[in-house]
C-alpha cells in the first residue's frame, strides 16, 4: 500500500512541474498552451546536449552535474517559451480564442518535428543515470535519487508559490488574470508580465524534462505528448488556473494511476485516470480548488 502511494506521489510530482506551466498560462491569458508538453521534451534534449558537451566531467559527480545542467536547462527552455510566446501567441492576442488554440497545436508540431530534424528520430539514452540503492521506508522502496528529485520539484513549487503570492511581480500576474485591460490602465506592463509567465512555466517544464531524462534514461522527440495530456488532466482535476490546485491535482492523478493499475489492471489504467477527468468535468468543472467561473468574468 505504501509502495503504491509512493509511486503515485513520485509520478505526480513530475506531472505537477509540467502542469504548473499549463495552469499559469491558462490563468493569465486563458490559453491552453498545447506546446507546453513539448517544452518538457525540449528540456530533456537540451539537458542531453549539455551533458554530452560536458563529457568526462560528468562521470565523477553525476548528481551535482545534473543539478548544474538542470539550472542551465531551465534558463534555456524558459527562453524557448519566451520565443514561442513572442512569435506564435503575442501577434494573435485579442483574436478569437480558437485561433490561439490552433497556433498552439502548430507550435507543438513545430517543436516536435524541429527536434526530430535536429536530433534524429531515434530515442537517445542519457549519459548520466540516477540509480541508487533502495531504502525501506514504511514498506515502500525509496531511493536517494527519488528523494532528491522530489525535493527539487517541491523546492521549485514552493518558490513559485512564494513568487506568485508574495512578490509584486506575482501580484501583477494575478491582477492580469483578473482583468488585463484594467492592469494596462493602472500602468502594468502586461506584455512583459505575460512573457515572464511563459518563461517561468517553460523553465518548470524544462526542469521536469531533465529530471525525467536523468531518472528514466530514455528520451525521444515525442515524449512530451503523453505527459502534456496528463499534465492537462492534472490541471483540470485540480482546477485550471489555480496554482495550489494544480499541484494537488497532479498528485491526485499520480495516485489515481497508481491505485487504478493496482485495482483494475494495467490496460485499464488510462481509462481509469481519464474517466476521472470526465467525471470531474461533469460534476465539478472548476476542479478541486478552482474558483467558480462566474467570479472571474
Amino acid at each position, binding site marked *: 500500500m505504501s*509502495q*503504491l502511494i509512493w*509511486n*503515485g506521489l*513520485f*509520478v505526480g510530482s*513530475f506531472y505537477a512541474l509540467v502542469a504548473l506551466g499549463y495552469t499559469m498560462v491558462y490563468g493569465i491569458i486563458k490559453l491552453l498552451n498545447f506546446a507546453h508538453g513539448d517544452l518538457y521534451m525540449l528540456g530533456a534534449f537540451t539537458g542531453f546536449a549539455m551533458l554530452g558537451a560536458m563529457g568526462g566531467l560528468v562521470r565523477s559527480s553525476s548528481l551535482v552535474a545534473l543539478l548544474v545542467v538542470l539550472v542551465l536547462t531551465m534558463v534555456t527552455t524558459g527562453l524557448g517559451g519566451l520565443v514561442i510566446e513572442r512569435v506564435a501567441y503575442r501577434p494573435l492576442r485579442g483574436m478569437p480564442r480558437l485561433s490561439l488554440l490552433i497556433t498552439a497545436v502548430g507550435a507543438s508540431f513545430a517543436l516536435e518535428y524541429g527536434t*526530430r530534424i535536429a536530433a534524429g*528520430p*531515434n*530515442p537517445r*539514452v542519457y549519459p548520466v*543515470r540516477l*540509480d541508487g540503492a*533502495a531504502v525501506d521506508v514504511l514498506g515502500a*522502496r525509496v*531511493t536517494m535519487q527519488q528523494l532528491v528529485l522530489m525535493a527539487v520539484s517541491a523546492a521549485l513549487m514552493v518558490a513559485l508559490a512564494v513568487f506568485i503570492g508574495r512578490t509584486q511581480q506575482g501580484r501583477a500576474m494575478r491582477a492580469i488574470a483578473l482583468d488585463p485591460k484594467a492592469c494596462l490602465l493602472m500602468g502594468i506592463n502586461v506584455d512583459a508580465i505575460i512573457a515572464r509567465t511563459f518563461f517561468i512555466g517553460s523553465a518548470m517544464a524544462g526542469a521536469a524534462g531533465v529530471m*525525467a531524462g536523468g531518472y*528514466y*534514461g*530514455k528520451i*525521444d522527440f*515525442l*515524449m512530451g*505528448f*503523453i*505527459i502534456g495530456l496528463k499534465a492537462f488532466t492534472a490541471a483540470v482535476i485540480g482546477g485550471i488556473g489555480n496554482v495550489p490546485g494544480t499541484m494537488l491535482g497532479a498528485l491526485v492523478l499520480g495516485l489515481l*494511476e*497508481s491505485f*487504478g*493499475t*493496482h485495482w483494475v*489492471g*494495467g*490496460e485499464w*489504467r*488510462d481509462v481509469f485516470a481519464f474517466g476521472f477527468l470526465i467525471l470531474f468535468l461533469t460534476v465539478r468543472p472548476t476542479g478541486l480548488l478552482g474558483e467558480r467561473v462566474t467570479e472571474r468574468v
Partner: protein
Amino acid sequence: MKKIALGAVLGAATLAVSACGQGVLGSDKTDDSGPIALGMVVPLSGSSADIGPYMKNGAQMAIDEINAKGGVDGRKLQLRVEDGACDPKTEVAAANKLIAAKIAVSVGGYCSGSALPTLPLFDRNKIPMIIPAANSTELVEQKLKHVFLINGTGDQQAAAAVSWMGKDGAKKVAVLHDNTSYSKDIATRTATGLDQPGGPDKAALDAVTPGESDYSANIASVLKTKPDFVYWTGYYQEGGLILRQLRQAGYTGKFMVGDGSVDAKLIKIAGDKAAEGAYATMTQTPDTIEGAGGWVANYKKKFGAEPGPYSTQSYDAVRVAAEGITKAGGTDGDKVAKALEAIDGFPIFSGPLKFTPQHTLSNGGFVILVVKNGAFTLRDALK
C-alpha cells in the same frame, strides 16, 4: 467563376496526364526487358527507425548478388524503399506509392500493426507480398492469396517462449504486452500456453501504455502476483524501461523479451547491470546462424556496418521473390503466388523453405538469446 473553370480544366488535364502515365507504366509491366521493381515498406523514422536500414541493406545485398549473376530471366532487379514509420497511415500511403510505381513483389513489412492495413492493398492489386519481419498471426488470418510470411509467427514464438520457460525452470510467469497487434498476439498465445496443465503457471497477463516513461504502477501490480519470470512481448523502448524499473523495484527473477525488443538500445536503456542475463525469443540473426560468417563479412564490406535484426530475413525475402518470379516465368502476380506456394526446399537462413497452407514457415526457427557482457548472444537453439 473564372477560377472555378480554370480549376476544372486543370483537374481534367491532371486526370488525363495521370491516365496516360498509368497507360505507359501499365505497358511497362508486360514489357519483358525492363528492370523488375521490388518494393519495400520499412520504418526509416519513428520508434523503430533503427531497424529500417538493416532491412534495406539486407535486401539490397540480395539484389546486387542476383543482378551480378545476370538478374532474373535476363532482367535486372531494382529496389524501391518507402518509409512506413511503423504508423498505419504512413504505411498505407507508402504502399499506395509502391503500387503506383508498379512493383512486382513487396518484400517489406516490419511492424505488424501498421503492415496489416497494407495487406489488402497489395492483394487487390495482385502484388505478392513476402513479409520478412512482421509476424503477428493476424497477418495471415485474412487468408489473402498473395501474402506470405518468412518470419516465424506469433504462435511459433509463443511456443518457443513457453518451452524455454519450462526448460529454464520457471514456476510463475507474468506476461506483459503493449496492446499492439504484434505484441498482444504473442502475449495472449503465451498465456494460453502457460494455462495448459504441466510446465510453468501464469501469474499475470497485463498491458502497459507505450510511449510513457514511468511504469512503476504496472510493475507494482505485476509484482503483487510474485512471478519468478517476466516476459515482455513489446518493443525495445518500453522493454528497456520496464526491465530497469523492475530491477529498481527489487525484482530478482528472470526477464525475457520478444523479438521486437532485441536491439542494442534495449541494453542501453535498461543499463548494463539490469540487462545482464535477460533472455530473448528471437528468429535467427546473422551472428547466431551457424555458417553465416561469410555473409556477415560481405555485409560489413558492402555497408561498413554490422548487420542487424532482419537483415537476413530481408535478404531471403528478395531471394524468395526472385525464385518465385523465375519459376512463374514472369511477374504476373497470380502466377508468382502459385510459384511461391509450390516452393519446396529452397535454402534460406532459417532452413529449407516450404510454406504451410496458411503461407507461413513450416518451421519458425526461434532461438533463445541471452544478454552477456552487454550484448545479445545465443543461449539455446531449441532444437
